[in-house]
């Protein structure tokens, strides 16, 4: 634009710069005169101050980013634990049923969202499969249809067979599967993170040699 930037004209005022009133002369001028002619010391001090500030900034960045990235650096074992899904008697042989559990790590304001659902399939007396409800495509909740023996996803129509393998649709793989064990008549799974393609809460990986310390005492009441 062609507008020269002008000082706003204060109404009824004309301020003339350049001429200083007599009572204003004095101390400032003396200080100015007292300054050493070379400025290397002050330049050096300024640079030192900037450097010092930068150092403080770096030190401060540690807690700031540490806090922000806290969840990222949590180890898998910090989030996971063996969780009971209840007595194995509640999962009849030859059926696939929905089960719920409370996530081992929860926050004070999680409310209902602290709960997680999963599908439990019992094929034989001691043979189970526990699937995440999250579709391997985009994480929508799959539903079990016993009559056609399929898991169907409502979002983009991914479907899986009763054993969790991919049947059709966009999912790149079968359903995510939890590690499980039976302990004292209860079915337990090793869970704690939302299953996505990136983490290991899923099948297809070699079974982990499980650390036994990650056990009951870590389970929420």
């Amino acid at each position, binding site marked *: 634009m062609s507008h020269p930037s002008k000082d706003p004209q204060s109404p009824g005022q004309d301020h003339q710069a350049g001429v200083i009133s007599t009572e204003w002369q004095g101390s400032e001028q003396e200080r100015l005169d007292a300054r050493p002619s070379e400025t290397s010391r002050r330049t050096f001090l300024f640079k030192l101050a900037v450097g010092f500030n930068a150092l403080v900034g770096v030190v401060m960045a540690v807690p700031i980013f540490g806090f922000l990235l806290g969840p990222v650096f949590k180890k898998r074992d910090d989030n996971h634990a063996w969780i009971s899904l209840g007595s194995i008697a509640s999962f009849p042989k030859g059926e696939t049923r929905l089960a719920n559990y409370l996530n081992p790590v929860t926050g004070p304001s999680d409310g209902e969202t602290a709960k997680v659902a999963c599908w439990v399939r019992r094929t034989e007396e001691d043979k189970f499969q526990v699937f995440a409800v999250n579709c391997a495509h985009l994480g929508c909740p799959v539903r079990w249809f016993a*009559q056609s023996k*399929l898991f169907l996803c409502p979002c983009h129509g991914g479907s899986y067979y009763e054993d969790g393998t991919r049947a059709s649709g966009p999912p790149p793989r079968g359903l995510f599967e939890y590690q499980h064990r039976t302990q004292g008549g209860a079915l337990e799974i090793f869970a704690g993170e939302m299953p*996505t393609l990136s983490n290991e809460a899923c099948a297809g990986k070699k079974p982990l040699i499980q650390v036994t310390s990650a056990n009951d005492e870590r389970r929420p009441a």
Partner: protein
Amino acid sequence: MNDSKQSGLKKAGLGVFNWFERRLGLGSQVAEMSGHPTPVSAASWWYVFGSAAMVLLGLQVMTGILLALVYSPSASNAWPSLQFINHNLTLGWFLRAMHGWGSDFMIAIVLIHMAQVFLFGAYKFPRELTWIVGVVLLLLTLGMAFTGQVLRFDQDAYWGLGIGASITGSIPVVGGPLVKLLLGGPIIGGATLSRFFTLHVFVIPGILLAGVAVHLLMVLKLGINEWPMPGRLVRKTDYEKNYAALTKSTGVPFVPDAAWKDAVFSAVIMLSVMGCAWFLGPIGPTGVPDPTIIQTAPKPDYPFLWIFAVLAYLPPELETPLLLIAPPLIIGGLLLLPLVAGEGEKHWSRRPVAVLMITLIAVVLGVFTKLGTYAPWSPQMDAWSSYTVPAEYLEHRTPLERRGAVVFQEKQCRDCHSLNSTGGQRGPALDKVAAEMTEDQIIRQILQGGGNMPAYGKALNPAETKALTSFLMTLHGHQRPAKDASLGTMPQNGTHPAAPVAENPPAK
């Protein structure tokens, strides 16, 4: 004159103004800004969208602050607090409705503004940076829409976060840490909601408002784009000189010559938002965000429906590469556009590729959004139990064929296949299936699946398969059933049981 009462009052008012003016100096700057000369051709109805977007932003800030008075950003209380606003507070539902519809309007207006700026060549020299900042503002606006949708913490929001996490999780190497950063913890929960609240209320609005200020400052500094004329080329060497000469000779003050149109349009948009809010009501919340209630079909809000649709149609093997490559390419292209095409023709009549691109993008976004509204790719999860087989499909049928109709319903075929236009649309409608496929082909398709259909070999026993096939073979409309041409030379044997079933009895 000074003695009269009226001018005494006037003088006092002026005195107060001057007191502030002397200290702030804003008045003269505002006067100068609002009176800045605009090419008379730019005082047009086509130039009203930017200001309308800004007014909508103001509405969003205002209604947002009011909603924040009551909204509780915790996973356990967000949903009840929204219900409380909707049902227990005076005009709470209207405030929520205005905020929701204002968001949709803002995205629409921003996109129209962008298309207009593109078609009028306004992104060219010297306004490249204005465009680039504008692209960032568009992304921030979309960010506001997505985070806002999460704050409406219902089933759609919960599973929408799951979709976000799943997409993030498919990124190689950094996917895992990014998911945790996104969710703020191992699962979708309170930490997730509060970080989206922080983004929606502090981080993005802060950057957005600063960006708008820069955007506006550049419009003031560089002047409003003149109406493009075919053949009037932009050159870095003389554009500024020509523009200055143009505004000097044909310039009119922005206020009032152009601004009245902005004001009228903004008022109409505000009335439209209020109209939508009043007659269509607040958006959601849908069901309570309980992860154990899985009887839900989550869907994103309007601005993201097209992405939902694209994700349904992409072949699985293309999905991750495209998700990772397309966004940087699109955003990079938008950002680089003015740097690559910063000079030359501005008029749309001499830029056929630009017109074609805008048309193509509009059609693609429109079609995918429309598809997203009814999601034909999604199975209709309750079709099998909620629709009946049309009566005319059961008349004059044998008991076996009728038994087949029962199998058809019972095995959830209807969830993906429609009969008489009811049922899922994921698979083809089966009203005339026997006219298109032979009995053998139908049996093979059912038992082995393929082409996006699961194999039902393990879910059907031979008797069920036989019954189902018999029923499907009756569905041929007014055409004759399809027949294997190679069988025509052999003795007719219309009723023999299908060979593959006899040869390959399905397991179990």
